[in-house]
C-alpha cells in the first residue's frame, strides 16, 4: 500500500490540539481557588498614585493588621486578608488613613498563586444572581428636566427685559413654552432684540399676534433640549457615582442605557432599602459666607462654636471651617454651571443664576466684597459600621465645603469661581454644582436583588446539576458506544474545561444562573456531534466497509450535517444575545461558547484519540 494511512494525524496536529487544550485549560485553573476577603483601594481621578500603597501599609502595620497578599494593577490596589474580621479592620483603617478622594471598598479576591496571576489568568466574573447584589434600572424624568429648564428661562427672561428698561409686559410659562405679552409691536420688537442677543443660541422665538395682545413665544430649541437632557443624564450618573463610591462597593457598574435610563449594579450590597434611599435622594448646594473672625481649628477642638456660625469640614483636606448661618443662595437658583477658563487662562467655573437668585445674590455680594464665600455640597452619604460582628451600612446626611473663594466684586446673573487648582478641579466643582442644582428626578423602573445566601445556593445547585448531568451522559455514552463513547466522554470533559477557560479569558463575559443552565444544556447537546459520527461509522460498518474506511467516512460524512445543525443553533443563540437582558444574555453566551467548543472537541479531539488508538492497526475490530 503506497497511500498514506487513512486515520493518522500528523504529529503537529496532535500537538496543536494538545496546545489549545493546555493553554485554555491553564486559564480555567483560577476558578478552582477559593476567594478571599479583600479591600480594594482606587482613586476618584482613576489614577492611583504611587504614594498610596506605602501610606496604607503603614496604617495597617500600626493597627497590627496583617495582609495575606497584595495586588496592584488597573489603577487599583487589592489587599487580601485571611478573614472578614481583619478585612473590616483594614477597611476602617484604610478609610481613616486615606483622604476623601480615595475609594476604599470591600471586595473578594482570588487566592490563586502568583504564577497564574503573572500569565494574566483570572477567574470567571460571576453575575449578580450568583454573587449577590442589587441591580437597578433608573429612568431620568426628561419631562421634568425640560420643565425645569423652561421655568428657569422664564425667570431669566423676566429679569433681562426689566434690565432692558422695558415696561408693561407679562411673562407666563405654559407647558414647554414661555409666553411674553407686550403692549405694542414696537416694544415687542425691542424685547425680541434684547432676548435674541442673550438667548439666540438656546431659545427659538416666534412673534404671534393673538387677540390678547402682541405675543412673543419662546421655546427651547432642539439642540439645547438635547443638551439639557444629556446633561441631566450625565449629572445623575455623576451623582450616582459619587454616592456609590461612598457605599464602598467594589466593581460597581453605572452606565447609561438608551436615551433616558441608567443601569446601576452593586455587587455585594444586600440592604436594598438603603441602596434605594441613597440612589434616590437629591443633592443640593448652598452658598454661605465664611466667618473669618473666629479660628475654626479652635472651634473644632473645643467644640465652642461662635453664635451665628456653623462648623463645617472641607471635602478634600478635611480641615475645619466656620460658615455663617445665613444661606446666601441655594442650588435651586442655579440654572447652569460649566467648567472653563478665566481671563488669565486659569481654570474656573462659570455659574448662571435665575432671576430671583441673581437679584438676591447681587445684593449680598455687594455687601461682602473682598470677603470669603463657601460652597457647601449636601448629600446623603453612607458609612459602614461594624455592629455585633456584622457590617451594616447607615445613611447620614453629609454637608461638606467643596469650594472657598474670595468675592472680588458684586456678582450678578453670571459669575465665575476662580482660583481652582486644575481643570479637573473645575470640572468636578461644576458637576457638583449642577448635581446640586438641577438634577432631574429619577425613578427606579426595575430592580433585581439577590441575597448572598441565595447567590451561593444558586452556585451550589448549578454545580450539582452540571456534575450530575455530566456523569449521566458520560455513563450512557460509555455504555452505548464503548471505546468510542469513552473518547466522546473525554472530549466532553475537555469541552467543559474549554468553556470555563474561555469564559475566564473574555473580560466582559459573566457567568449567570441561566448561563450555568446553558452549560448543562451544552453538556447534553455537545455529544450530538459524536452521536452523529458514531452512528455513521456503525452504518458504514454494516454496509460492509473496512474498519479504517468506516472511521474515515463516518467522520467526513457527518461533518456537513454537524456544521449545519450547529450554525442554526448558533443563530438562535445570537438572537438571544442581542435581544436578551442581563442573566439571559449569560445563557446565550455559554450556549454559543459551548457549541463552538463542542465542534472542536467532538470532531478534532475524538478523531485524534481514535486515530491514536486505531490508526496504526491494520484491521482492528472497532468498539463502537
Amino acid at each position, binding site marked *: 500500500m503506497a497511500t498514506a494511512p487513512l486515520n493518522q494525524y500528523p504529529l503537529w496536529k496532535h500537538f496543536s490540539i494538545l496546545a489549545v487544550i493546555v493553554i485554555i485549560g491553564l486559564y480555567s485553573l483560577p476558578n478552582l481557588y477559593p476567594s478571599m476577603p479583600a479591600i480594594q483601594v482606587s482613586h476618584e481621578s482613576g489614577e492611583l498614585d504611587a504614594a498610596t500603597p506605602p501610606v496604607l501599609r503603614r496604617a495597617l502595620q500600626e493597627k497590627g493588621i496583617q495582609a495575606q497578599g497584595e495586588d496592584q494593577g488597573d489603577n487599583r490596589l487589592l489587599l487580601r486578608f485571611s478573614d472578614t474580621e481583619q478585612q473590616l479592620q483594614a477597611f476602617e483603617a484604610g478609610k481613616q488613613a486615606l483622604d476623601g478622594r480615595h475609594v476604599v471598598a470591600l471586595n473578594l479576591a482570588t487566592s490563586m498563586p502568583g504564577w497564574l496571576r503573572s500569565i494574566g489568568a483570572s477567574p470567571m466574573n460571576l453575575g449578580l444572581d450568583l454573587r449577590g447584589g442589587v441591580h437597578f*434600572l433608573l429612568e431620568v424624568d426628561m419631562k421634568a428636566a425640560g420643565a425645569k429648564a423652561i421655568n428657569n428661562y422664564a425667570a431669566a427672561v423676566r429679569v433681562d427685559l426689566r434690565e432692558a428698561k422695558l415696561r408693561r409686559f407679562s411673562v407666563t410659562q405654559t407647558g414647554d413654552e414661555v409666553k411674553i405679552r407686550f403692549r405694542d409691536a414696537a416694544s415687542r420688537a425691542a424685547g425680541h432684540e434684547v432676548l435674541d442677543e442673550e438667548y439666540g443660541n438656546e431659545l427659538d422665538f416666534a412673534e404671534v399676534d393673538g387677540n390678547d395682545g402682541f405675543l412673543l413665544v419662546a421655546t427651547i430649541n432642539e439642540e439645547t433640549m438635547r443638551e439639557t437632557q444629556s446633561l441631566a443624564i450625565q449629572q445623575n450618573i455623576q451623582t450616582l457615582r459619587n454616592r456609590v463610591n461612598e457605599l464602598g462597593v467594589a466593581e460597581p457598574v453605572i452606565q447609561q442605557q438608551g436615551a433616558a435610563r441608567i443601569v446601576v449594579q452593586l455587587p455585594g450590597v444586600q440592604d*436594598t432599602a438603603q441602596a*434605594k434611599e441613597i440612589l434616590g435622594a437629591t443633592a443640593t448646594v448652598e452658598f454661605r459666607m465664611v466667618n473669618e473672625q473666629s479660628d475654626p481649628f479652635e472651634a473644632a477642638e473645643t467644640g465652642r462654636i461662635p453664635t451665628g456660625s456653623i462648623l463645617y469640614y472641607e471635602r478634600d483636606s478635611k480641615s475645619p471651617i466656620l460658615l455663617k448661618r445665613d444661606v446666601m443662595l441655594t442650588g435651586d437658583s442655579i440654572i447652569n454651571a460649566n467648567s472653563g477658563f478665566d481671563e488669565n487662562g486659569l481654570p474656573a467655573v462659570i455659574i448662571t443664576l435665575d432671576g430671583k437668585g441673581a437679584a438676591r445674590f447681587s445684593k449680598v455680594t455687594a455687601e461682602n466684597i473682598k470677603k470669603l464665600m463657601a460652597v457647601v455640597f449636601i448629600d446623603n452619604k453612607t458609612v459602614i459600621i461594624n455592629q455585633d460582628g456584622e457590617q451594616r451600612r447607615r445613611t447620614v446626611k453629609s454637608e461638606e465645603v467643596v469650594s472657598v473663594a474670595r468675592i472680588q466684586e458684586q456678582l450678578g446673573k453670571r459669575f465665575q469661581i476662580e482660583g481652582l487648582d486644575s481643570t479637573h478641579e473645575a470640572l468636578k466643582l461644576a458637576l457638583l454644582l449642577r448635581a446640586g442644582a438641577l438634577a432631574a428626578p429619577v*425613578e*427606579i*423602573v*426595575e*430592580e*433585581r*436583588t439577590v*441575597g448572598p*445566601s*441565595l447567590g451561593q*445556593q*444558586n452556585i451550589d*445547585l*448549578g454545580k*450539582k*446539576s452540571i456534575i*450530575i*448531568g*455530566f456523569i*449521566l451522559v458520560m455513563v*450512557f*455514552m460509555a*455504555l*452505548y*458506544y464503548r471505546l468510542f463513547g469513552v473518547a466522546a466522554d473525554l472530549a466532553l470533559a475537555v469541552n467543559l474545561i474549554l468553556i470555563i477557560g474561555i469564559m475566564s479569558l473574555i473580560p466582559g463575559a459573566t457567568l449567570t444562573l*441561566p448561563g*450555568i*443552565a446553558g452549560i*448543562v*444544556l451544552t453538556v*447534553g*447537546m455537545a*455529544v*450530538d456531534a459524536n*452521536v*452523529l459520527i458514531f*452512528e455513521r461509522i456503525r*452504518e458504514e460498518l*454494516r454496509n460492509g466497509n473496512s474498519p479504517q474506511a468506516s472511521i474515515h*467516512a463516518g467522520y*467526513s460524512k457527518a461533518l*456537513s*450535517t454537524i456544521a*449545519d*445543525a*450547529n450554525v*442554526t*443553533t448558533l*443563530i*438562535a*443563540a445570537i*438572537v*438571544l444575545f*442581542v*435581544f436578551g437582558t442581563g442573566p*439571559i444574555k449569560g445563557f446565550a453566551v455559554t*450556549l454559543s461558547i459551548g457549541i463552538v467548543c463542542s465542534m472542536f472537541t467532538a470532531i478534532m479531539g475524538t478523531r485524534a484519540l481514535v486515530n491514536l488508538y486505531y490508526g496504526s492497526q491494520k484491521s482492528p475490530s472497532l468498539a463502537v
Partner: protein
Amino acid sequence: MQLLKDKLNIDFMGKRKLALMLSGVLIVVSIVAMAARGLNLGIDFTGGTLVEVGYSDSVQLEPVRRALLANGLDDAIVQHFGTSRDVLIRLPVEETDRDKSSLSNKVIHALEPTGSPEVRRVEFVGPQVGGELRDKGGLAMLYALIGILVYVALRFEWRFSLGSVAALVHDVVLVVGFFALTQTEFDLTVLAALLAVIGYSLNDTIVVFDRIRENFRRIRKATSEKVINTSINQTFSRTLMTSITTLLVLIALYLFGGEVIHAFSIALIVGVLVGTYSSIYVASTSLLALDVSKENLMPVESAGRSDDGSQV
C-alpha cells in the same frame, strides 16, 4: 449496546395522517388554552413586585398573610417556594402608587414581626419595562425564525426552509400551550428556553433534512415518500440518542437546579420531546406536502457547491 435493530425500517410516513391529526388536536388544545386561560405571565412581563424571604424554620403562610394584610398589602399573593422555610410574595403593579419601587421595602418591613426573615431575592419590574420586555421577547422569536428561514433556504431549498419553520412554529405553539394549560409561570427564563428549543428542534430537523438531501441525490429510483422514510430510519437512532442525552441533563437540571430554573427546565423538557417528534412528522411531512422531489435539489448541486465535498 444498541437500542434499535440494525436495518430499521419503520413506515414513518405511512402514519403521517395519524400524526397530522395528533398535531392538529394538540395545536387546537394549545390555542384554546391560550385563548381561554391565557399565560400565567411572570412579573418580567406584567410588571410588579416579587419578594422571596427565607425563615430559619418552617413557616405557615397564614401568619405571613396576616402580617401583610395588617400593613395594607391586601393584594399580595403568598406561597411557599421550594421548601416550607422559603416564602414568595408577589404584588401586582399599582398604578396609583407613585413610588412603585418602594413596595418591596414595605413588604420587608411588614414581615419583621413574623420572625425577621432573610431577604433572599427582590424583583421589581415597572409596568413600562414589563411591556418592553414582552415586545422584545416577541421580536426575538420572530427574528430567530426569520434568520433560520433564510439560512435553511440558502443551504437547502425553500421547501426545506418552510418545512423547518413549520416544525418550529409547531413546537413553540405546543410549548406555550403547555404553559397555558398547566398555568406554569412564564417568565424571561422560559422565553430563553423557548429560543433554545427552537435551536434544538432545528438541530434535529437539519440532521434529518441533510440525510434526505443526500438520499435524493444517491437513490435513483424511489418515490419521495420512500426516500424520506429511509432517511428518517437512518437517522432515527441518532435522533433518539441525542434526545436521551439532552433529556438526561435536563432532568438533572430540573431535579437539582433549584426552584428558580424549574420553569426553564420544564420548557426545555417539553420542547425537546415535541422537537424530536416534529422534526420527523412536521418537518418531513411538510416536505411531502410541498411536493419535494429529486429535481428540486439538482440545480443546487450543479451550481457547484464546494462545501459538499464530503458527500461521496
